[in-house]
């Protein structure tokens, strides 16, 4: 039986000023440039309608760029139809051919890639083996569970050992538990085989969990690109801050800037953080709810605040807190010693808590 080995063909994907216009005036993707390294899993993340699926489909060749250049590896594929690109895709609906068995589905692409019968069969079986569907080869898709269908779809795309493998919201039809497991499986396979994967989702948690890099998209353009941690810890703007995890957005004043660091004041509170190239003046900081510290009143460098609402959600507490500079959402692991609604507290931010958002 053939073994699926480390993919030596994994290729980079490059967009150079790519624009896609539908029907003359709708800009689905507006002048995007991006670069995806070979062997990495990159997620396109964004709300619906942001252009992430269109971007994915342009990589696949299912849509043609209106302007700009798309390269896979070193090759310009801008004008190449899907058939001729060495790319395969896992669809949101799986798109398993209902009239073919599991094995026929998985063999489908192999047949058009010029493998002989035996090779096709052994590769297809190896693919099924890889996704843990040994012995299901004779079934029809309608005889499988949702999770199994999903894995068939993955196997069907995988066996072609494509230069780039695309996932279009592959987990959206699975329940929460299964989703966690399958996304880990996908990540494992990707890393073991060294595949270039482009992954589309609107679920930020999923994106953070699987990606080497994340590209956040908004309104047909790229809002920010970076590793999951970079995005989480240093969102460039309100949109990204809010979209990747929750964030309190607080007005502040940049008092002074010296090199890489800046002094800001939020109400009476002072804070030192990375300046990110900002100049003194009014600005906005983003603070993750978990980086908000609540203590008894009048702790040093804290401001007085009042608990408006206190909610127990199992492994942590959630508070809505009224401060002099607005209402703040906070989370605390201290389940044993909760604050009560109406209680006066002192509120401060962790050292690395606030992040300056770039001017919008």
């Amino acid at each position: 039986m053939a073994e699926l080995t480390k993919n030596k063909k994994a290729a980079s994907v490059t967009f150079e000023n790519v624009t896609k216009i539908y029907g003359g005036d709708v800009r689905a993707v507006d002048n995007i440039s991006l670069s995806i390294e070979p062997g990495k899993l990159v997620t396109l993340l964004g709300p619906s309608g942001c252009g992430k699926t269109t971007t994915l489909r342009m990589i696949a060749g299912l849509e043609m760029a209106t302007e700009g250049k798309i390269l896979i590896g070193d090759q310009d594929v801008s004008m190449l139809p899907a058939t001729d690109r060495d790319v395969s895709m896992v669809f949101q609906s799986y798109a398993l051919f209902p009239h073919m068995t599991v094995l026929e589905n998985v063999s489908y692409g192999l047949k058009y890639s010029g493998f002989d019968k035996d090779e096709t069969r052994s590769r297809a079986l190896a693919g099924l083996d890889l996704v843990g569907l040994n012995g299901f080869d004779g079934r029809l898709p309608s005889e499988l569970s949702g999770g199994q269908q999903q894995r068939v779809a993955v196997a069907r795309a995988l066996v072609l050992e494509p230069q780039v493998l695309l996932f279009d919201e592959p987990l959206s039809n699975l329940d929460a538990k299964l989703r966690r497991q399958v996304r880990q499986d996908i990540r494992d396979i990707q890393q073991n085989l060294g595949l270039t994967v482009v992954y589309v989702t609107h679920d930020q948690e999923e994106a953070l969990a699987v990606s080497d890099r994340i590209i956040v998209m908004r309104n047909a353009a790229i809002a920010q690109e970076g590793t999951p941690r970079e995005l989480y810890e240093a969102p460039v703007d309100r949109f990204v801050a809010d979209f990747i995890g929750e964030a309190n957005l607080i007005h502040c004043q940049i008092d002074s800037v010296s090199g890489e660091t800046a002094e800001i004041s939020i109400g009476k509170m002072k804070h030192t953080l990375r300046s990110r190239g900002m100049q003194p003046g009014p600005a906005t900081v983003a603070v993750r709810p978990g980086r908000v510290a609540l203590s008894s009143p009048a702790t040093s460098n804290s401001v007085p605040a009042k608990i408006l609402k206190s909610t127990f959600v199992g492994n942590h507490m959630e508070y809505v807190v009224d401060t002099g500079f607005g209402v703040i959402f906070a989370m605390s692991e201290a389940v044993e010693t909760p604050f009560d609604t109406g209680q006066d507290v002192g509120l401060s931010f962790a050292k690395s808590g606030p992040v300056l958002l770039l001017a919008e």
Partner: protein
Amino acid sequence: MPTITSENTTHPTLIFWIIVGWVGFLLVPWYGIEDGFFTFEWLSDGYPTDSDYAPGAFLIGQGKKLWLAPLLLPLIASLFALGRAKSDPLFAKILISAGVFGFCWLLMQGFSIGLRGWQFGWLEALFGPLNDRQFGMGYGAMFLASAFLFMFTQGIAARGAINGDVFVVSAISLVVTIVTVFVFFPIARLLIAAFITEEGKYSISIFADKFFDDRIWGIQCLTSGIKCGVAWNSLFLALLVGVITTVLGLTFALVVTRSRFKYKRNLRALTVLPIITPPFVIGLALILLFGQSGTVTVFFAELLGIQPTRWMYGLPGLLIAQTLAFTPIAFLVLIGVVEGVSPSMEEAAQTLRASKWEVFRTVSLPLMRPGLANAFLLGFIESMADFGNPLVLGGNYDVLSTDIFFAIVGAQYDQGRAAVLAMVLLTFTLGAFYAQRFWLGNKSYTSVSGKGDAGVHPMMPRRLAYPVYTIAAIWVSFTIVVYLMILAGSFVEIWGINNTITIKHYLTAFSINFEETGVRRWTGSAWGSFFTTLKIAAIAAPLTAALGLVTAYLLTRQDFRGKNAFEFGTMLSFAIPGTVIGVSYILAFNVPPIELTGTGIILVISFIFRNMPVGVRAGIASMSQLDKSLDEASLTLGANSWQTFRRVILPLLRPAILAALVYSFVRAMTAISAVIFLVSAEYNMATAYIIGRVENNDYGLAIAYSTTLIVVMLSAVGLLQFLVGRTKIGRRSSFGPTAV
């Protein structure tokens, strides 16, 4: 693993078409073979030097038909595209210019030079008289035309049209080309004929004279005993038939879906019968029942002590016959609509305290509106286009379809008048088509969401049920009587005169002699047309289905500029009555460059384009239920669009394929209006043969033949049903079948 092909410099498809082009130019006869498309006597009969059979290259070599020489240029040019990468701009440029130039030159020379040299006076003025002529195009021209067409499509595909998809670009171009050639070109030819004077000049006034003729638009009948214009006659009849068939169709649909009637299946079967009944048969049966000496007429005349009259000839007879024939079509459209009204809406209305009658009136009926509009449209168009019934029962009530026929075949032989009448008819049907589309617009009344709807349709309210049952019962018994008459009529000597039971009509038509030597001879007089009909229908059906489904695929699955115009073009032939098609085909295809009259091919082609819209509609309906990601999955897995179409889409479309196959087969066997113009000595069709028998007062034979055809079609449908498990003849798209 697939190699990325953009840098690839061998293009098997292109090589294929270039070879086809060269073969067309160098090897096969350029002009049409007089003995028929599929005869190959030319191989041993003077080929390749005999100028009748010579390939284009040989003709030029002999110094003849020199106007074909420029075709060599694009052929040579295309060779330079070989060895170039698809992404090379020159590749596309070469192919596009070679294709366009070659195709256009082919057309221009074809239309410019005909049987008598130059076709247009100004050409003769320009170049002087041409002492040569040419016949219709043959294999060579056809090969070359296809080669140029597909060179062009590969060129524009390489430029990135439709995602660079060669199959899709080629399919679109092919459909556009053949629809242009076989729908738009003949219609244009017909319209032009309306402006030609007897001297062969063009004139607006001759058109105006013919168009504003009192025989077409007169309204004297309102005030005096003079007949009204045929246009009004046709319009009035069609409106009546549209309304009546819609009401009756709704009646049956209600009985089948909202009553506890036990024999619903039989009712459904009964409604299929008229669809597979050849024309005239119903008319003949009606004569035997309601004619001056018809059973019913005589019975009532004796009862009332009056003279039997010819009351049925004219409007009454036409109404009865057309209603009988076209109600099933309305029924088949409406049953889907009536079933489609979501029960939960009706249940919601009931819980809001509406009575059953109020629910029906305020919720169910308005939701059925699109279906009612469709049913009416179909009845209207079918009636407008009906040819057989007016011929037999029309009396002095002239209608457009028969008048067109007699304008052409009558002693006056007035092509212009036929063209004008055809224009009027076409205006009515297209007008109805557009009025309906405009009225429905984009309103969606669809209440079936695909989600499980647990509700049950309520029974009909009582005050609706009684009239509905009564009408249905009368109608069913009437239909049964008519068909019993038909069956009986084929087994008696002369109906009403000599009622001896006999099978002589069947013997006359279908006898077989077994000679001593064992040689079978098909001595029956009907065998020739019977075999021709089967052959033509069997060839036309799969082609119709294929073309319809490919078109449906393009319409549902591909986006391209001009898609709306494309859809209009493919649906146009639906609104064109058969007589108009027949006349226009004669005008367009009797002379070079495309010479098809007298062949079986013209019949096949006319059937394909008459019935294609139904295949398109059936295909669209099924294809829109297939998730588009199936195709995309296949494409990203490395299959091309053709492989995707064949391996993924087609297998999932079996019901639509079956529907299209059955429909086009049945229509090809029962059509008459276009056929009557296109049959020839060698290719006579059953319906044309039957019309001859009817003309000859030979009702017995006509009915016997028709009965045989009904049985043949029933078995064909049954066989297909058996093979696929469930008959789909009833499944019609929202636009339903075309006119006869």
